[in-house]
């Protein structure tokens, strides 16, 4: 019942195509880029208000910051780079001017360059997983990436769809809800958190991985790194340049606050309980 007014970032891509290193981790001779998807989302501890016209929530003046799962995704990409398993990490975000701040945070954490896909105004308000995954798929082809890492879901809309849709559009394998990822030759071993426990899969690159909570603990973006990040490049791109139509197929009819929780009623005996349940039409 809330509207997502998130901005999705797509990080850069791994490029191990044509790599001949069988059974060995890709070294720096293979230009390898890691992808991160970063969501900008409404900060969790702010009291969210429904707009008076009921078309969405109030976002003006509310601090937007990187989605926690995407922070974990960025951290994983940078860890891969530090292990020299990937060559370049590109952080991508879709949205209005403000998302540049979030891209800068990713750059401060260690990403090499950023791509800002400009989506603003009405388009931004209706931007959802389908359009973002189309943008990412187009960028992946353009940048010739080999790995796309995203947060498993945005904490403002909880869609949990973008990663999966990207994989489908590109026809790439996907390792979702990753709590561990290890690069083994040209395959990525992903330990997934599933309802029944942990599932380990091996997927061939290029692939899409979505990060879950226990994958890592993201580092802080320290001030010296924020200052250095100002010198790193952020390229501007429009969805039209990528051949993507951001028109939404969904129309929000109404947004409402959750119903107020009613007080409970204490009963003395089981008969009372049954009586009350009958009264409420539950039995």
């Amino acid at each position, binding site marked *: *019942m*809330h509207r997502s007014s998130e901005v999705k970032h797509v990080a850069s891509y791994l490029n191990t195509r044509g790599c001949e290193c069988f059974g060995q981790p890709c070294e720096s001779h293979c230009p390898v880029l890691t992808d991160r998807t970063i969501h900008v989302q409404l*900060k*969790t*501890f*702010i*009291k*969210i*208000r429904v707009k*008076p016209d009921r078309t969405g929530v109030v976002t*003006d*003046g*509310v*601090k937007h*910051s990187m989605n*926690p*799962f995407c922070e974990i995704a960025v951290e994983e990409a940078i860890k891969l780079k530090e292990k020299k398993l990937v060559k370049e990490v590109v952080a991508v975000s879709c949205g209005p001017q403000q998302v540049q701040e979030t891209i800068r945070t990713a750059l401060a954490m260690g990403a090499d360059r950023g791509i800002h896909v400009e989506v603003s105004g009405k388009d931004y308000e209706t931007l959802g997983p389908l359009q973002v995954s189309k943008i990412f798929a187009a960028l992946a082809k353009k940048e010739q990436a080999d790995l796309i890492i995203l947060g498993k*879901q945005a*904490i*403002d*809309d*909880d869609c949990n769809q973008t990663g999966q849709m990207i994989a489908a559009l590109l026809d790439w394998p996907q390792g979702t809800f990753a709590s561990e990822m290890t690069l083994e030759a040209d395959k990525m071993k992903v330990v997934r958190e599933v309802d029944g426990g942990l599932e380990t899969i091996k997927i061939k690159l290029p692939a899409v991985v979505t990060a879950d*909570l*226990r994958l890592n*603990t*993201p*580092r*802080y973006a*320290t*001030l*010296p790194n*924020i*200052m250095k990040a100002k010198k790193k490049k952020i390229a501007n791109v429009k969805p039209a340049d990528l051949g993507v139509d951001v028109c939404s197929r969904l129309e929000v009819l109404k947004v409402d*606050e*959750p119903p107020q929780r009613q007080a409970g009623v204490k009963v003395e005996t089981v008969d009372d309980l049954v009586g009350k349940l009958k009264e409420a039409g539950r039995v």
Partner: protein
Amino acid sequence: MIVNLPVPFGKISRRCVGALKAVQAEHVAPQVYSTRSSSSTLPRITTHYTVYPRNKDPRWEGLEMERFADEADVVIVGGGPAGLSAAIRLKQLANQHEKELRVCVVEKASQIGAHTLSGACLEPTALSELIPDWKERGAPLNTPVTEDKFSILTEKYRIPVPILPGLPMNNHGNYLVRLGHFVRWLGEQAEELGVELYPGYAAAEVLFHEDGSVKGIATNDVGIAKDGSPKDVFERGMELHAKVTLFGEGCHGHLAKQLYKQFNLRENCEPQTYAIGLKELWVIDEKKWHPGRAEHSVGWPLNRNTYGGSFLYHLNEGEPLVAVGFVVGLDYTNPYLSPFREFQRWKHHPSVMSTLEGGNRIAYGARALNEGGSQSIPKVTFPGGMLIGCSPGFMNVPKIKGTHTAMKSGMLAAESAFSKITDENLQSETAGLYIPEYEEAFKKSWIWKELYSVRNIRPSFHSYFGLYGGMVYTGIFYWILRGKEPWTLKHNGLDSAQLKPAKDCTPIEYPKPDGKISFDLLSSVALSGTNHEHDQPPHLTLKDDSVPVAQNLAIYDGPEQRFCPAGVYEYVPLETSDGMRLQINAQNCVHCKTCDIKDPSQNINWVVPEGSGGPAYNGM
């Protein structure tokens, strides 16, 4: 008691994040080390390195403590009206004189304006001097004051008091603003001019040259666990060196507190006296909304010897919004007084309820403010640095306005700093520049004239006649003589020394909140959006962990449980034996500074938590 925030959506992922944080917290034992300064039965409360230095702590042995350092021309601590006005003025002068100047502003809030809270009724004098075309540039001054109402309240009635022109409460020409939005706009103007703004980074330490002058500041370290040990993600803050550092931390800044001692800046002035201001934003019934109306009241529910009063401003910002708030002087004597509950109680007055009934509360916050006026202004300049804004304290108390004077002080500091920095023939005695010109400029400016003329109004409340004595004094001496009387009344001394022992006072019976007009503390704190990284040392540090129970609770019945507007301090029974202990819920803190001011034992030292923590005010 961590505030349990209602979450209409994203429940699962929030629980996920919450669960991980709980798991991470499990390994942190709250009572790890045998206490040094507290008795062995009491659990350790304070773990901050300002109380327990890290160079003596075995857990920090061998850790790289070197900091990355960078140079700027001017570093400004605090991105509020004073700091941003100073930054803007510096860049304006630099552009005018075609000089290169690197100006960096560090601000502890996650975004500019997020820690700003004020009524507010803005006098646009300083703004018009700083940015004459503010209207064209879209400054959010949307509500000119059209009506001033002042009243004395009794429990059931309202006695209107005429506001004659010339009285300080006359607001003709002023604007009702959401100061947080105004500060955000100032931040945008500053960035356009090339100021480097760094929100989310708190200045945690003042750095000194060998000769004792100020060298700059260091930002907070990150990644220290609740028990004071380093986490895997530990990183040192960075050092920002400057030719001169401007400190604009707002009322009762924690670095300013150190500087007062270091440079003996308060030797010739009275101690500062404060008040706490609590504020809420309400969306009300359109029929009751009168945009441009500024209402103030004194009297009920406070007794005549407790300074304080209320404000209710009707804002014109699209929806029928009112800013409503209550101020209580922190020189109150009854330890059973709770400023928060006085505020909630006041809203039930018939004249106030008639406005708020049927409305919806959308925001809450609190902040301490200065009441000392000209008698309490310290020396504002010292080698390497200057104090600006509400930090030294330029609030005009009877006008209840401090933003215009804060901005002007920032501008004056900028102007004097600029001429010194760009003076090529300058022979400075100290490595950090000493700029006495700032103090001279401010003494000659309209700030001083204004503050001097109202200097006797606040102290006139200290007589037996309290509120009525003060009003009579204002009516006679201010309105007729405009403060030209030859005497200067004194304040009462430190606010923290004013509390009477609990046994000599009567507890106050506060009504229960009804959930429609008045509310409980925790739901209010939730509305402030405050949060802090939970796994860090509590930033409300105690010099001595045993003092709260031994003195504050024993003599004053624990006044911190009542004066904290965020429920940070709680006295809870000990688990294993009889007696109580103080629990500090540092995550709830809204950075108001009241505890540091009012603690009768002066044992609480507020230090800055990790940057980005604190309230998330939106246009407060």
